[in-house]
């Protein structure tokens, strides 16, 4: 008998059995409405991860004592996939009958944000079910284009009860987040049957870098008002090729486990117009040099993208360029971290001149771009301004990578005897 066990154990060890009871009631509530939720509470998953082998091996085994759900906390966090339930109001009525108070946090649907002037119904992003001194935070995840899951930020509207729960302590909701679709595992912990991510440690790792940035659709629309989009057949064709090249590059790098982000013109296109800039002629990615792997070149070649040139050395100025379909080029710049800045290098083939491009330090966020979940620098504005100067909002068709960027530094010439190594053109 779980209740008896918990009461006895909980009181003996001075732990909070209220939490265990509330979680049990909540699980009863949602299973009576056939709603599949899974546990994403980072503190519990952290504990579970340590015992994961044992928990996996005895999915139904009784627990000797309450180890996970009895630590006194204000909340326990669960996730819900939006498409797995029908938003029946019956759930809330049952919840009330069981003594829960609940709060629903709605906001606009980001999947319609990029669209010209569509306004749908607001969608639920978070639910909070409170009973006695414990609350369940239910985070709603939505599938988005690019085959990933998204959860929204938690923002209170003015009329809402700010003291309903200590919102600032919540683990989810400060920022929107992006996640892979998790594989789930049915387990029994503390005599409660729950679903958890199959690999809790990788979920926790994912969680720590999950911050998501929405594209600035409103500003992009304003940009297109000023500078109408190029709708020519050439532009349509280029965008299509750039998109498929980016998809191929993302697939290749993700398979290698190499983290990358949108850089240069591709990043500018995302930030300024939420699309590929049709006159940009190539796709630009950035990779931290610490993530460099020798397999990158063969992997791209295997994917049908031959190496076009390789400049610099691994420990400085490395730059790779692959040949995509019909003259669309994939440029990969490697970034070197210093104490107070980050830089990448450039090399002019005919003169052996070296260039440095300096950026303020940045971290990486997820975003969605051409139906792909990709990284961009979180501090995008600083990144773009470093590269393109304060006038980045004005489209420029003639761009010289050696002189136009505002963060370029002339950095001498490669010694001639190194040219064969640092300037490889295919």
């Amino acid at each position, binding site marked *: 008998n779980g209740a008896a066990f918990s009461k006895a154990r909980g009181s003996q060890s001075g732990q909070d059995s209220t939490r265990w009871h509330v979680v049990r009631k909540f699980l009863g509530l949602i299973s009576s409405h056939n709603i599949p939720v899974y546990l994403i509470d980072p503190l519990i998953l952290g504990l579970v991860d340590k015992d994961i082998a044992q928990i996996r091996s005895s999915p139904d085994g009784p627990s000797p004592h309450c180890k996970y759900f009895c630590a006194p906390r204000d909340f326990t966090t669960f996730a819900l996939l939006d498409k797995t339930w029908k938003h029946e109001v019956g759930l809330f009525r049952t919840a009330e009958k069981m003594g829960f108070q609940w709060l629903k946090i709605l906001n606009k649907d980001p999947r319609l944000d990029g669209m010209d002037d*569509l306004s749908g119904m607001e969608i639920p992003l978070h639910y909070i079910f409170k009973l006695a001194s414990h609350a369940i935070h239910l985070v709603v995840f939505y*599938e*988005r*284009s690019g085959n990933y899951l998204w959860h929204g930020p938690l923002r209170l509207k003015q009329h809402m009860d700010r003291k309903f729960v200590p919102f600032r302590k*919540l683990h989810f909701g400060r920022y929107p987040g992006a996640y892979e679709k998790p594989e789930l595992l049915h387990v029994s912990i503390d005599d409660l049957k729950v679903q958890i991510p199959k690999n809790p440690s990788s979920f926790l790792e994912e969680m720590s870098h999950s911050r998501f940035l929405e594209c600035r659709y409103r500003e992009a629309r304003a940009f297109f008002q000023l500078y109408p989009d190029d709708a020519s057949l050439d532009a349509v064709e280029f965008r299509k090729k750039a998109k498929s090249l980016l998809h191929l590059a993302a697939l290749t790098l993700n398979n290698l486990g190499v983290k990358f982000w949108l850089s240069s013109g591709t990043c500018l296109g995302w930030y300024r117009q939420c699309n590929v800039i049709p006159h940009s002629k190539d796709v630009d990615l950035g990779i931290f040099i610490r993530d460099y792997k020798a397999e990158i070149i063969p992997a791209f070649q295997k994917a049908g993208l031959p190496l076009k040139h390789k400049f610099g050395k691994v420990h400085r100025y490395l730059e790779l360029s692959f040949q995509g379909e019909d003259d669309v080029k994939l440029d990969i710049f490697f970034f070197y971290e210093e104490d107070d800045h980050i830089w990448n290098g450039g090399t002019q083939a005919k003169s052996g001149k070296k260039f440095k491009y300096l950026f303020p330090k940045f971290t990486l966020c997820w975003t969605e771009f051409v139906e792909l979940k990709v990284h961009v620098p979180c501090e995008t504005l600083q990144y773009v301004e470093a590269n393109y100067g304060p006038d980045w909002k004005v489209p420029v068709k003639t761009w010289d990578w050696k002189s136009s960027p505002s963060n370029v530094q002339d950095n001498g010439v490669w010694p001639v005897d190194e040219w064969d190594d640092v300037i490889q053109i295919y």
Partner: protein
Amino acid sequence: MDEWKPNPAVKPHKKRSWYLAWKYKLMNQRALRKLCQTGAVLFLLVTVIVNIKLILDTRRAAYEEEEESAQDYDDEMLNVEVPRHPVNNKKVLDVEVYSSRSKVYVAVDGTTVLEDEAREQGRGIHVIVLNQATGHVMAKRVFDTYSPHEDEAMVLFLNMVARGRILIFTIKDEGSFHLKDTAKNVLKSLGSQVAPFLSWRDMWTFVGKKGGEVYGEKHAKSPALSTWGDPVLLKTEVHLTSVEDAECHWPDTELNRRRKRFCSKVEGYGSVCSCKDPTPIEFNPDPLKDNKVFDVPVAVIAGNRPNYLYRMLRSLLSAQGVNPQMITVFIDGYYEEPMDVVELFGLSGIQHTPISIKNARVSQHYKASLTATFNLFPDAKFAVVLEEDLDISVDFFSFLSQSIHLLEEDESLYCISAWNDQGYEHTAEDPSLLYRVETMPGLGWVLRKSLYKDELEPKWPTPEKLWDWDMWMRMPEQRKGRECIIPDISRSYHFGIVGLNMNGYFHEAYFKKHKFNTVPNVQLKNVESLRKDAYETEIHRLLGEAEVLDHSKDPCEDSFVPDTEGKIYVMFIRMEQEADFTTWTQLAKCLHIWDLDVRGNHKGLWRLFRKKNHFLVVGVPSSPYSSKKPSSVTPIYMEPPAKEEGAAAVPAVAAAEQT
């Protein structure tokens, strides 16, 4: 937005409110004027201050939203909503109704709820329904009773309005020419004394409660055929009842809450709001076994025709295998009533700020709707596209479930459509039969995501191109020789007669007699034979079995086809090259099928039924099937009629219209 030019077709309208001018002249007294001036200045001042504050607040709100401090969970949106004046603490409504040749208006408690002074529009009887407890406008209609049949529509509408509602009538221009006795009697039964004697160009206003008292009626007779009656202005008071009395007492369930919300807002939907025996709003049709389209999103494209949308959604939600969670209704504009209909059925709806005009607007609405559909359902490989003026066959999803794998596997396919352009009562016969056609019928169809994302979306016509989306999709640059699968008997029925490109005549001629499948669970025949190569084998088999008709007879005559059933016949017509449809068009005309442009062809072959026999038409020598023609047979040639003035213009215009 600023760059868009207003529609040049709209003529600038002139105010014709001489009546009001005359009225104001009478009040032109000094003291009054001064008082008014002072009042106006004060009012202006207050308005300016309030507006400035509002602008500042909104700016601040927008700014703070942008700066959305991540440190804080507070949504700093300021509450800009000004608390509304409660309407219902007042028990009496002042109603003003004006009727004249060129302008009508209705004001309730000083708020104009109807104003129509547009030229060449809004002729006939305007009807407004008010909630008897709140005074809210629940329905607004205009029936052009100068034209035939509109009075029947009005009777239908008035019969659907619940007892106790307040009805307001006013005539603009002319409302009596086709106002028949039935309609006059209905108006009489509502308490109108004038209605039975309404005649040519009379002006008339009337306010009354359905099944209750009359609040006022005014009438001005037209003195002569060539002139209109004097404008009339009716001012009256209406006593409100309690909210309790104005509502039905249905059991308190989730469904009935939706119903209650709906029925207290809008009128004209008949039994759905009946207190005693309301019609269901949940249908629970039988599920489909092995439903391959259960997870396919359904986009319903709608405008502001809420009654159509209501009828459409009823039929859609009654179709076997429907999955309401996958349905999204896209409304072109911020119209409330269509959204009310969507919410009544518990579906999700999305509104679209109108961009561009007319056909381009429809086209942009389509694009936004399709893009949104694939955003909302990122896993979907297909989307079903429906319009608000379609009835959906009971086996619509069953039909798609049996055929959708073809669209996935056969790259030579462009779409699956529920509509057969040539499937009329007298030309369609077999619910289990499918065709391949080179045209794209629309009217209930399935779109492949890859086609949309890779090909159509990137080059969709921009708003300044005033193109029809469907005409554009039919262009060879888009279709690239691919074909659509259609059923012999359509799985959708086009009932709309009011629309951008629709009118009663057009509908009667081309849509009314369309055959529509009502048989559930039809097992489709030989679906695999619809694949590209298999279909050729199938056609050759049919042509091999077909009996050649007597080419010396007139193909328009009924006797051209023998009085048999279940046989296959073939005829050969002249078709010099791929685009030569001279004879086909004449044949289509005399067979009373779609002749406005060429539809339903497959490599110079048309398939239909005549007298329950399969009837094949082959265009010689252009069609590859010409080899099946016996050498003794001379292909039939039918000459187009000599061009009369105007005659050719009608089909040309109509053909360009979206159907």
